[in-house]
């Protein structure tokens, strides 16, 4: 992966975190080393999650007094997806999953797009697989590929395979480009399968995702690349 490509992927993640309109809002950081951008993004994430922590914790504590359906109504109609995302990791995981069962999928997709799954691992891993699948489809429809890239590492293989089946080739390529923990990209594409991987790579240029395809190819393991070469040659 070229340094510029790596920086472009990091810039997209930073733009999403800052709530900017799109990755093009931060083209001026493409020359900054990816490691610097990653450190800055991590620092901003800490800043946003730690700000007003005491009030958020008291709000989470108060949530224990109320029934799940009431909390879901409050979450959807008063708190909104951003504040719900900040609260998610402060709630008891079972309770958070119970509340989420009352949210419509579109709201859960918006909430998930604001969530740092590392701060709510138990909630993410406790969500029913079919619900995760519905959220993934809604997030993809909303163009939230950067946010989706944060979740891949936290999904079990069955759920991940289900998501891969439901998402389009373009979605997969976009998510792969901004995936957190790209060292696992070869494992993810074992689930995608050789035939579909080839199709994704072949179709990338027509989707305007040539750089993303090159990046994906770079992250496949030696055996996968050899298989793809053999396939292309045969």
């Amino acid at each position: 992966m070229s340094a510029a490509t790596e920086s472009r992927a990091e810039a997209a993640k930073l733009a999403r975190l800052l709530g900017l309109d799109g990755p093009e809002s931060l083209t001026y950081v493409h020359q900054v080393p990816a490691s610097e951008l990653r450190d800055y993004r991590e620092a901003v994430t800490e800043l946003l999650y730690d700000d007003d922590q005491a009030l958020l914790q008291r709000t989470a504590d108060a949530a224990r007094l109320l029934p799940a359906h009431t909390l879901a109504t409050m979450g959807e109609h008063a708190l909104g997806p951003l504040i719900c995302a900040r609260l998610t990791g402060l709630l008891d995981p079972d309770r958070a999953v119970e509340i989420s069962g009352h949210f419509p999928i579109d709201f859960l997709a918006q909430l998930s797009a604001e969530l740092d799954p590392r701060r709510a691992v138990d909630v993410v891993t406790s969500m029913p697989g079919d619900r995760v699948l519905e959220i993934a489809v809604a997030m993809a429809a909303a163009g939230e590929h950067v946010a989706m890239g944060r979740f891949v590492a936290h999904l079990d293989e069955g759920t991940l395979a289900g998501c891969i089946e439901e998402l389009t080739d373009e979605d997969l390529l976009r998510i792969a480009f901004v995936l957190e923990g790209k060292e696992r990209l070869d494992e993810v594409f074992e689930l995608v399968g050789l035939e579909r991987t080839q199709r994704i790579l072949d179709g990338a240029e027509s989707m305007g995702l040539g750089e993303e395809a090159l990046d994906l190819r770079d992250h496949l393991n030696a055996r996968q690349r050899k298989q793809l070469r053999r396939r292309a040659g045969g």
Partner: protein
Amino acid sequence: MPRPADQLPDPPASLDSERAAELTVHTKAALRRQRRELATSVDKAFKHIPWPLRGAVRRVLGA
């Protein structure tokens, strides 16, 4: 106690000062947006709480 946000992170060292300042503006805006949403939404949420529980919730919130 100062809010953590009083210590904004330093922008990447490779950015020139003008771009660094621009990035900091975006970060401050994201922080302001979050604070605004939290401040307004907790108040708004109260109207959804059943009357008999409002006092108990207010006590936990320290409101």
